[in-house]
Every structure is written in C-alpha cells, then in structure tokens.
C-alpha cells in the first residue's frame, strides 16, 4: 500500500520531490516541539498550487492524513505527523510573486521565509510586520497557519493583521481564494478563520500580505531593574503613559546569566539585574527623542539601575544580540527546553512571573523567563533533560501549572505558538463544551473527513483511544 501511495505521489510531483526512506523521514518526526513525534509515510515537496491540489486530492481519496509543514520551527507540535500520513512541505514554493510598493502589498508562495520577504521589501522602505524569533527560516505559510507574532507584535499585531488574501487547497483538493487585496472584502472573514487554524482547514498555497512602512527612526533602550516587580510595573507604566514602544521585551536574571555564560552569545548584559527590559521606540526623530526621554524617566521612577541607549543600527543590534540568542543559549543548559507561551493582561505580569519562580522551586527545575512584556506574552523556558523521564514529567507538569495561572489571570494558553498537540488538554480551561463543539463543527464543515492535520488544536477530534493515550502529554495540574 505504502509503495503504491509513494508511486502515486511520485507520479504527481516527480520522484525527486518525494521522501519516503526511513532514514530521511526521521527528520520529519517532529517540529521544534520535540516532545511529540510521529511517523509519516512520505514527505512531498510540491512546486505549485496544482501539485498541492493533486497531492491533497489523492490523499483524500486514499483516506491518508495530510500534514502541512513549512520550515518545521513550530513550538507546539503542529507539524508533527502524529497520525502518520503524508507531509506536504512547502520548501519548494518560495517565490515572491509580486511586490506592489505603492499599494504596500506582496503576493508570495507559502515557503518564502519571513525574513526573506522583509529583506525584499526593505529597498521600498517597507517591512513585513510579524517578526518571530525564527524569522530567518520560518515560512510565511507557517506564520499564517500559526498566526505567528514576535517582538514587534506589540505595535504591529499578529500575522492575522497582515494577511489580506489566501489561496488555499481544501481537504478534497479544491482550490479556493479567500479575501483579496483590500481589507473588508464582502462576506464572512474566512481569512480571519483560516489564519491561525494550524493547518486544519486547508493548505495555504499563496498569500496576499500587507507590507508596513519602515519607521523613519528607531532607538533601543536596555534598562536594568533590581527586581522582577519593578521591571514589570515599569512595563505597565510605559503603556499607561501613552507610549507605544514597537517592541518591549524582558529578560530575567537567569536568562541573562545563561546568555553571558556562553562565549558565543555573550552580549554584555547587566549580570546584577533581576529583570532587563529592551525597549524599541520608533517614529519621527522628534517623536523618538521625546519618547526616549519619557521612557527613561518612567523607568528611573521605578528604580532602574542602568539605562543603555542604542541610537544607530550597530549599537541597536548589539543591544538586541542577547535577546535574539536567548533560546540558543538556553539549549545549552540541559539540552532540552520546554518553551511556554502563555499570555496575561499586563497588570497581572508581576504576579504571574513571581508564580513561575515559585513553580520552578517546587518542581526543582530551572525556569528562565524571556518574554514579550509589552503584550503580556510570557515565555517561561523550562530546562530539562529529555532522557530523564521523571524530569520530563516534572517539566510538563510545571508548564501546565503556569499556563493554568495565565488563564486564571484572564489570559491565554498561547499567545503566538499555537495549540498544536502540546496544549490540547488545556483548551477546556479557555473554552466551554459548546465553544469546543463549535470549533469541531467548523472543522467538519470545511474538512468533513478530518483528514487535514488530524490530532491538533481541537481536543474532541483527537480520534482513536490509542492516539489519545499517545498524545496526552500531561493531565491537569493537581
């Protein structure tokens, strides 16, 4: 059967665009969330919408699940082939089809890397707003599927604010165009429904996205605080003063120590700070001048011990260096990192952050916090050794406790990484039975055979009992 399927796939995309040998398939067992794995029967790398359509239609006829995949940088298991099936990887669909600088629009294939589009837009004075940390490799198709964010989501919003139109292949292979080239096309906002649907509703084959004007000037402040609470309160103060930083990031003492301990990643961050804020302020020169003065005053009033300023590109890049390499540096602690993605209202930041410290102590784990403070998006990073089952269990249980605290504070289990497989058992903290049933009904409306990316996002469609046991990472905390 498998050979017949591989032959049929090869007939569509050519043998050089099908991966089916066991050794090569191990690369595709998981995405960047390594805790869930699966065995795909094959990976296909189509070059066109038509090829995607024919591949998906074939899988539909053969009752084989389809798992869309971009660069595999997802952090919730969204691209892991947990129910087997065929992975459709968009790596060969990476053409920028057009950039219309006057209209500030780009039309791209789904495999274009996030940073590649921004680099292409830059000569026009434009940029693609969302900038996830994995921007150098993560794809725009993946960004749309996960509704990706990034440090600059504070001012510029998530991916959903930047996608105007989608060409998608539905589960039966049908190609449909959603939205268009302007906001507010007539009809239900299907683009809004498909963005963030984690590959459950369709495979994106082209996107029409907004490009945003580059700010005339940007300055960066690195501010050191003697306590977590002081730093978090400063975040709220900055927003309440009417300032709108384009990014407002935070790193705790543990993160700074980890970065500075590595020769490769050291950025000269203040080791004695309990929390450091990285603040980007942009606008016209006059606006930025005023904002920098105001932000500095606010931070000092909250007891800031040091403020460094980067006014030009190279000094700004230096200040950002530590932030950008934080995840890489943390991987060196114990080898494995469980990256959480809870969001809380800004007023709850001090409380929930202190709670993560408490959780770390109780579970005997190291948790470093590096996060998008301005929009309350926490990324507690739990270091663990995946070869140690007890430690892995503790890491997952600690993570669940922290995410529960985020929901209880009025926030969310995920700000930008998606539900995937990782957070399936947390969905009922945020939604009632009716709302979850509604999501399942929406899924069945578009994909009645549940063949697109099964086992993700919706707890009730997890499927057979065997799969359920396999995917249940962790139960509820206590």
């Amino acid at each position: 059967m498998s050979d017949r399927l591989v032959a049929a796939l090869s007939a569509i995309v050519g043998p050089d665009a099908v991966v089916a040998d066991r050794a090569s398939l191990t690369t595709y067992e998981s995405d960047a969330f390594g805790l869930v794995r699966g065995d795909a029967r094959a990976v296909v790398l189509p070059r066109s919408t038509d090829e995607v359509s024919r591949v998906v239609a074939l899988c539909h006829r053969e009752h084989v699940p389809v798992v869309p995949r971009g660069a595999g940088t997802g952090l919730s298991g969204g691209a892991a082939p947990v129910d087997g099936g065929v992975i459709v990887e968009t790596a060969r669909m990476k053409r920028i089809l057009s950039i219309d600088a006057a209209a500030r629009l780009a039309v791209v294939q789904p495999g274009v890397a996030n940073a590649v589009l921004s680099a292409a837009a830059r000569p026009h004075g434009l940029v693609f707003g969302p900038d996830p940390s994995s921007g150098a490799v993560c794809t725009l198709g993946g960004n749309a599927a996960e509704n990706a964010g990034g440090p600059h989501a504070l001012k510029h919003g998530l991916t959903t604010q930047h996608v105007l139109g989608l060409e998608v292949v539905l589960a039966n292979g049908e190609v449909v165009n959603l939205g268009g080239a302007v906001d507010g096309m007539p009809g239900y906002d299907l683009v809004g429904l498909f963005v963030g649907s984690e590959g459950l509703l369709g495979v994106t084959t082209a996107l029409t996205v907004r490009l945003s004007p580059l700010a005339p000037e940007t300055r960066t402040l690195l501010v050191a605080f003697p306590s977590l609470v002081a730093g978090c309160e400063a975040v709220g103060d900055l927003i309440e003063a009417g300032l709108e930083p384009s990014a407002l990031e935070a790193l705790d003492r543990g993160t700074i120590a980890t970065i500075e301990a590595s020769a490769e990643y050291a950025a000269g961050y203040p080791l004695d700070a309990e929390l450091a804020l990285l603040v980007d302020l942009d606008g016209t020169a006059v606006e930025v001048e005023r904002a920098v003065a105001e932000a500095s005053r606010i931070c000092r009033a909250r007891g800031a011990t040091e403020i460094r300023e980067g006014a030009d590109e190279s000094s700004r890049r230096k200040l950002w260096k530590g932030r950008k390499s934080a995840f890489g540096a943390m991987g060196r602690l114990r080898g494995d990192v469980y990256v959480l993605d809870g969001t809380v209202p800004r007023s709850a930041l001090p409380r929930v952050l202190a709670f993560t410290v408490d959780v770390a102590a109780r579970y005997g784990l190291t948790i470093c916090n590096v996060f998008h403070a301005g929009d309350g998006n926490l990324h507690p990073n739990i270091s663990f050794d995946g070869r140690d089952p007890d430690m892995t269990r503790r890491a997952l249980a600690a993570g669940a406790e922290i995410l529960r605290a985020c929901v209880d504070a009025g926030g969310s289990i995920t700000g930008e990484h998606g539900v995937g497989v990782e957070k399936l058992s947390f969905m009922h903290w945020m939604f009632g039975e009716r709302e979850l049933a509604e999501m399942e009904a929406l899924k069945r409306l578009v994909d009645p055979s549940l063949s697109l990316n099964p086992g993700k996002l919706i707890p009730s469609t997890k499927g057979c009992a065997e799969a359920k046991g396999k995917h249940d990472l962790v139960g509820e905390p206590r």
Partner: protein
Amino acid sequence: MSLREPPAVRETLARAIGAARLRDGAAPRDLVDDLLPPVVARPESAGEVAELLGCAAREGFAVIPTAGGTRRAFGNPPERADVLLDLGALASLREWSPRDGVLVAEPALAVGDAERLVAADAQTLAGDWPVRSTGTLGGSAAAGRPPLDALGPAGPRWSVIGVEVALPDGTLRRHGARVAKNVAGFDVTRLHVGALGTLGVITEITLRARPRAGRKSETPFSESNAFRANVLGPDGTEVAAVELRMPGGRLAPAEPPTTLCLDEPADSASARDRFRAWLARWREVASAANGVAIVLAAPPSWKRDVDVWCGEPPAALPLMRKLKALYDPTRVLNPGRYVAGL
C-alpha cells in the same frame, strides 16, 4: 411578508422574554428599508437575547438586530422582518482597564463614549474605530466597516479581541480573551465581525485600546484607500452612498463621477436605472484595481435591483453558505441582507 400574524408573533415572544420587553413596531423609526417589523423587542440581558433568538428560530420569525440604528439602511433589503431586536438597553460598560488596555462593554455602548473614556487615560480606539461616529460598538463590529458619517479606517476588525454572542440555537458563546495576543483555537471572534449579525448577535464585546502617543490619522492598518461616492437628488440631498475601497496608493479616478447628480425624482424608474449603470461602472473600476464598491445606503427599490455588496459573488460563497447554514439553519437572522442574499 411575515410568516405569522403580528399578534401571534407578539404572544409567542412574550412567553419567551416577557410582554414588558415588547411593543408594536411603528413607522418610520422602526422601518427596515420599506418593511415594518410588527414587533420590537428590547431585551435587558444577554440571556434574554439568546432566549429570543431560540424562540425565533423555533417559530421561523425573522429577526433584525439593531443598536444605534446608524446602519439601518446597510445591506440588501431583508426578505422578511418579524422582529426588530433593539439592543439599546444593553449599553453598559463592563470594564475599562487602562493598564491592560482592555475595554469590555455591552453592544450598545456608543463608540464616541468609549473613546472619551479611554482618551482620558492617554489611549485611543482611533485608527481602528470610527470614533467620531454616533454608532455603537456592537453595531460597528457587526457592520465591520465605518458608518456613513465616518469613512476612513478599515473598521474595527483589528481591535476586537473577544465577543460573547447569542446564537439562533438559544445559547450564548464566548470567544477570545482579555489579552490582545491569543491564538488558542479557531479565531471565531473574527467570523462575527463584519457578519452583519447574520451568524449571531453580539451581546458583549472586548476590545484593545492602544497608547495614544504617535498615533495620527495614519495607523499601521490604514493603507487601503477608502472613499465615498454618492448620488444626490434634484434638491441636493443624498439619496445613495457607496464605499469604494482600493489597494493603497490608488486614488479615485476621474471617471465615473464620484457624485451622480439626478435631475429626475429619486423614485422614478430612470433614476434607478442611472444608479444601476453608475454603480456597475464603479464596480468595473474597483474590480480592475482589485478593490470593492459596496453600497452603504440607497432606496430599497434601488437596492433590490443590485446586490449591495458586490457585482460578482465572492469565490468562497459556497463556504460562506455552509457557515450560514451551520449557525442559522432556519435563516432567521437578517435573512437576505448579507452578501449574495445569505
């Protein structure tokens, strides 16, 4: 064109939400285009809205939701209108947290009142909302685009981060959270924004305000050019208005004229024909530029002659029909008023 006699409608609804919430419809203030709903219901809680919708769905009563009434002329003329659902009693502010930049309100809170509230804390809804309009938060979100008196921003899509909606199955659903950054589950909130109340009725809305600093008329989200074309009657009063939305950087062309001045009475057949031809030309221009031309208001007889939303139905119309059938299988919410008669 009601399915039932007015007294029967009123008696049945009285059993669902109480006679005290009902009155007879009266022209002209309760007119929906040229239809007069025989009953006006004014529920006082989200639960009552859900009860009413459940009852309407069971009985087949067509429901026309309204709050501020500033967009009563928007949309195709409804096929039927049994109940005008007046949400005006649901106008309270639930919460405003300046530190979180989050505002929670009932649907009939006026946009201008909400803006004044957040402006006192150096924040704003501007750029995302038509803050100078007389419309309500719920009505603006349902319409998904600015009202007649405040064309400009793309509309409130960006800043709605959560809704509670009443559905025709008689239940209330909550989606979203009190945070702007939230990707848990399908973004169902977005389905209700711009749906003109054809999938459910918004009974509570959660939005994000933004810091005021540096916020000018231009926002990161206002690249598309929206402008307004209109038709004036012989006496100079506006008879019809059309919203034209093109990808940014493309200005209004010289032809067709942005304003069509009629010499003949607006109720004449020739006026209607001239409107239809003028709109068709605008739709050609808009579609050539990948834009849209949407009729914001026009006499009912003119609207019956066209689809106010679009010339060609959207490519995804079959999916949209399925959505409508999922949420409102008996078509009681604004029947016929939405795109392609949904």
